[in-house]
Structure formats: structure tokens, C-alpha cells
């Protein structure tokens, strides 16, 4: 095998310019794929991280039907206190759950005593909320990233329009479940940067205050945001939670009264994430086509140019299998060379991208820093694809070479 490699490598060196051109083509393809996969993957991860860690959590639990009417923020579809307590127990005992936060969502009128507008509010337990969505505090661009009783975190666009600053008093007026109206004064504790996606322009108050505004004798819960320990295990945790809720959770007409939704079900960004995956797939297919066509072209040429040589080694008694291996190894070596160079240059380009520090805006989020990461798995997959396709592309010419009749090959001019 060592000698077959030696001959293959020397034959590649023999046609230096052609080998370099083909390997360069493969290298460019690999660099392109790696940079694209790395940047798009990092963009995707960053955006998912922003969405899940700054507002949504990894998954959410709602009473059945709540998500379907979430735009109305229906108070009659809240979880009752006993239901929440049951779920609270279930989540607290789940080792895969890192944190969870009950939210009481409602809509109301918001006034700075001069102007009045609409607002959507989340009543939260600040400690639980900041554990569940740790980037929420980072969204506080003015004021304190804390929330006490009687305080409100106001979304930036609203604060800007109503010229609000931390420390300003505001009034929230909301319609209660029984149809009556109640109001409460709050002090702006901080201004929240808006985020893209559902809930990205909501304000926050303490859950106790929310219950008070809504005149609830006991705190009801509209949704429970959950953060899990290992994000990659989300589908398994979802499945298990659904099962547990079906088996042990509160029932309604013989069915589970609660629904479990992942961030994917709730955020429109999931479709963008899927598009990125589809584009990545197409880019990989393009790489396969580049490698396949370029290597096949080179190997067909190599066989054609070396017909007499093939005749000679066949006449000497070289078994057809070894002739075949000789050409396959040439394709293999070219694939390995192209992939290795591509990985090296690709890693350098990605390092350069990180060094330059590309910033971008996503919806209301400004100046997000793109940190491209080269996943070792992507690296291995792309390299393996290139080498495998290189071998595949060499097969036909190699088989042709091995099947040549030595007498015909020797006669070839």
C-alpha cells in the first residue's frame, strides 16, 4: 500500500499544474463551505441564544388553548394556583430542568400622566425569571437590571416614545378577569432593549403586582418558561415532559390540561434557522459537485494520458486490482490534500473573521457580535465528504484503467 501511495503521489506531482488547479478548486470549495457553515451556524446559535436566553426560555408550558389565543393574552386560560403548584413540583424534581419561571401575562393601558398607550406586560418572579432567561438583565440598557415590588421594566421603544427615564412614575390600567378595571402606579426601574420575536417588546412587573392589578386573590400563571441544563437535549426533555404531564399532570376532560411548546414552536426565527440549514445543505451539495466533477475530469485525463503506461504495468503482471487502487489512491490523495488545505485556510479565514469582529443588527437588536465557531464535527463531516467523493469520482476511471487489455493499451499512441 505504501508503494501504491508513493506512485499515486508522484503521479500527482508529475502533473503539478493540473493537480494544483484541481486541489485549489477543492480547497476553495472546502473553505467556502467551512466559512459558510461556521458563520451561518454561529449566527443561528447566537440568535437562538438571544431568543431563548433573553425572553423565551428553552420551552414553555401553557394551559391548553392559551398559545392559540396568545395575542389576546386571555386571563381565563391561566393556570390555577393548584395546577401551577403541581407543575412546579414536577419541574423542581426534574434533573434536566435548570430553572423555570412562572409568568402572568396581561395587557393594559400605560400612561405617563401625559400620554396613554397600550402595553403588554409579564408579571414575573424576578429571581426565577433572571435564572431562566439570563440575558434579560443584559437587555436593560438604562436603569437597574432588577425588579422590585412597585417597579416596572419598560420596553425601549415605549420609553422613547413617552420620553420615560428610570425613576419616572407611570400608571398601568388593566381589565380583570371579571371585566372590572383596576389601575396601579409603578416606578420605572429600567429601560429594556427590544428584542426580535414574541415577547420582545413586553414590559415586566413583579408577579405579585400583576396579580394585584388583576385583582387576583391567588396568583394565577399564564405561562411557565423553562430553561434546561443541556440545550442539545431539548427534544428528549420535551418528550419526557409531555409524557409526565399526560400521565401525572392536571387533566381536563380526560386529556392533559397543559401544553408543552419548545422555542421552535413559538418563535418565527425557527423558520429562518431551518432556511439556514437548507442553505447549508445546498452549499454542501455544491461542494460535492465541485469535487466530483473536478476529480473525475482529472482522473479521466490521467487514465487517457497514461494508457501505454497502464499497458506496461499490466503486461508486467500487475493485477487489475492494484491498477485500480493506484488510480483510486490518486483521487484519494487529491481529496485529502484539497480537504487539508481547505480546512487550514478555512480555519484561518474564520480566525480572521473573529479577529475583525463582525457586528450585525437583527431586528431591534443592534451591534450583535458574530463569533464564528468551527465545529469539529462539521470539519470532520466536510473533510470526510470531500475524501469520499474524491474516491467515488476516481472509481470509474480507475475501473476503466484496470479493465484495459494490455495489448490494446500498449498499442495506444
Amino acid at each position, binding site marked *: 500500500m505504501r508503494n501504491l501511495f508513493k506512485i499515486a503521489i508522484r503521479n500527482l506531482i508529475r502533473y503539478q499544474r493540473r493537480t494544483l488547479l484541481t486541489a485549489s478548486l477543492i480547497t476553495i470549495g472546502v473553505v467556502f463551505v467551512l466559512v459558510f457553515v461556521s458563520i451561518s451556524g454561529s449566527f443561528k446559535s447566537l440568535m437562538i441564544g438571544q431568543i431563548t436566553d433573553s425572553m423565551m426560555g428553552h420551552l414553555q408550558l401553557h394551559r391548553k388553548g392559551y398559545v392559540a389565543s396568545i395575542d389576546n393574552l386571555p386571563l381565563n386560560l391561566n393556570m390555577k394556583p393548584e395546577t401551577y403548584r403541581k407543575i412546579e413540583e414536577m419541574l423542581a424534581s426534574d434533573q434536566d430542568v435548570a430553572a423555570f419561571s412562572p409568568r402572568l401575562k396581561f395587557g393594559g393601558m400605560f400612561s405617563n400622566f401625559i400620554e396613554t398607550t397600550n402595553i403588554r406586560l409579564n408579571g414575573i418572579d424576578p429571581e426565577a425569571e433572571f435564572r431562566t432567561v439570563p440575558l434579560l438583565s443584559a437587555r436593560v440598557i438604562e436603569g437597574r437590571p432588577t425588579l422590585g415590588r412597585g417597579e416596572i421594566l419598560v420596553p425601549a421603544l415605549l420609553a422613547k416614545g413617552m420620553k420615560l427615564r428610570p425613576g419616572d412614575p407611570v400608571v398601568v390600567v388593566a381589565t380583570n378577569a371579571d371585566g372590572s378595571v383596576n389601575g396601579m402606579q409603578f416606578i420605572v426601574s429600567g429601560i429594556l432593549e427590544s428584542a426580535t420575536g414574541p415577547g420582545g417588546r413586553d414590559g415586566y412587573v413583579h408577579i405579585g403586582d400583576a396579580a394585584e392589578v388583576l385583582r387576583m386573590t391567588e396568583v394565577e400563571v399564564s405561562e411557565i418558561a423553562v430553561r434546561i441544563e443541556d440545550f442539545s437535549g431539548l427534544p428528549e426533555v420535551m418528550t419526557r415532559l409531555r409524557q409526565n404531564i399526560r400521565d401525572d399532570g392536571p387533566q381536563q376532560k380526560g386529556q392533559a390540561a397543559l401544553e408543552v411548546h419548545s422555542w421552535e414552536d413559538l418563535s418565527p426565527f425557527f423558520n429562518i434557522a431551518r432556511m439556514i440549514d437548507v442553505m447549508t445543505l445546498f452549499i454542501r451539495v455544491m461542494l460535492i459537485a465541485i469535487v466530483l466533477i473536478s476529480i473525475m475530469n482529472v482522473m479521466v485525463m490521467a487514465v487517457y494520458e497514461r494508457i501505454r503506461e497502464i499497458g506496461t504495468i*499490466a503486461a*508486467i503482471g500487475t493485477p487489475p486490482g492494484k491498477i485500480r487502487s493506484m488510480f483510486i489512491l490518486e483521487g484519494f490523495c487529491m481529496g485529502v490534500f484539497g480537504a487539508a488545505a481547505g480546512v487550514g485556510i478555512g480555519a484561518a479565514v474564520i480566525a480572521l473573521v473573529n479577529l475583525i469582529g463582525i457586528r450585525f443588527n437583527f431586528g431591534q437588536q443592534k451591534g450583535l457580535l458574530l463569533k464564528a465557531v468551527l465545529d469539529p464535527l462539521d470539519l470532520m463531516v466536510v473533510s470526510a465528504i470531500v475524501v469520499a467523493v474524491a474516491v467515488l469520482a476516481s472509481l470509474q476511471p480507475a475501473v476503466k484503467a484496470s479493465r484495459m487489455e494490455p495489448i490494446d493499451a500498449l498499442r495506444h499512441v
Partner: protein
Amino acid sequence: MALITASGVSKEYRTEEVTVYALRELHFDIEPASFVSFVGPSGSGKTTLLNMLGCLDKPTAGTLTVAGTEVAALNRKESAAFRGKHLGFIFQDFNMIPVLTVSENIEYPLIMVQNVAPRERRERISRMLEAVGMADQGGKYPHQISGGQKQRVAIARALVTNPALVLADEPTANLDSQTAYAVIGLMKKMRDEMGTTFIFSTHDTKIVGEAEVLFRLVDGRLAEKEVKGGTTHA
């Protein structure tokens, strides 16, 4: 026992309109350690016959036995194995493998065909380089040596596997006459030293005289067999 026995060997090429007879009804024996030449003008069937002796082609009629094997009965794989074990080839155009050095060219059949152990390979290569007078040229590539030197390397490559028979098709055609004599002389010397049968084809009348057994082919027929010291008509 004869190394080669040809009995009624014929080769014909058929097209839709015409049948061309390349060889007709050849009968001959060649003894081991002979130094044989097939001579004749272009188109007389020399190359066709050598191709059949070398298991590169098959007769359309008759039987051809080489080293005790009926070569027409061998399939592709068996033919390759037979060639690797029993035969050596010397080509008109030298047919060196350009990416391998002189030593590596000689080593090639030992690795790729016979799977000889490295130590023995080194010994055999060294012996062959010495024998063909190329001991100091082993590291050179084919493009760095002359035509005569290439043919010496080809002889070494053909003999390094210790074959029973070496076939050389017009081995001197691309050489000047002085080098041609030297190459034929070397082949003869190797025959003497190793006991290998050499069969070469040529239409070079000057070289013909070097053969100990001469078969003259005319239009695919064996016209004459000449053994040094006497001639028989076929």
C-alpha cells in the same frame, strides 16, 4: 522438455467484410535458455506471435504451451499472474514508469507483482543494476538517462523476477547500432548467467546474426528456422 510448444497456432482478425490472417499454422518448439529471434518484414506477424507468447493475446486456432501452461486457457487474472511469475518484457520504447527512479522501476514487479520481501528486493535490485552496468544510476529518473541506458534498465526489470522467458519486441529499434549491439550483447550475457530464455523480434538484419535460433516469418507463416550451425525450412 521444451519451454514453448506451438502446435498449429493461427491468429486471424475478422471484420464484416474481410478476414486477415496474422499467423497461419505455426509449429515450433523453443528449448529453455535459448536465445531466439523472430525476424521478418513489417506485417509478417512477429509482434502478434510475441503477444501470444506473452499471454497478451490468444490464438484463434492451435495450442500454445508456455512453461507447461496452455496460455489460451487462462483468463485475464490468471494471465496477469502467469506473466508476473514466468515472463519478463522488454519494449521497443523502453516503457519505463516515468515517476519511478531506475531502482524503483526495477523494483516495481518485485513489489506489485511478486510481493518480495524488502531485504531480498534490495539485494536483487543491486545485483541487477550491477549486471546491466547501471549501478551508479539507480537514483536517476528515466528522463535523466539515455535510450540505451533505459533499455538496460528494462532488461534488469524483465529479469529481476527470475522469469523463465523474456520477450523483447524490437528491443533495438530505437537505438543506434552500437547501442543496439551492446543491448543484445547484454541480453545474451544475462541468458548465459541466469539461464533465462530470450525471444526477441527484429527486422534489423545486423542484429539478426546475434540470435542462436532464428525463426523467419513471412506473411504469418514460419518460412525458415535457422539454428546456428544449420538451417531447416519450416
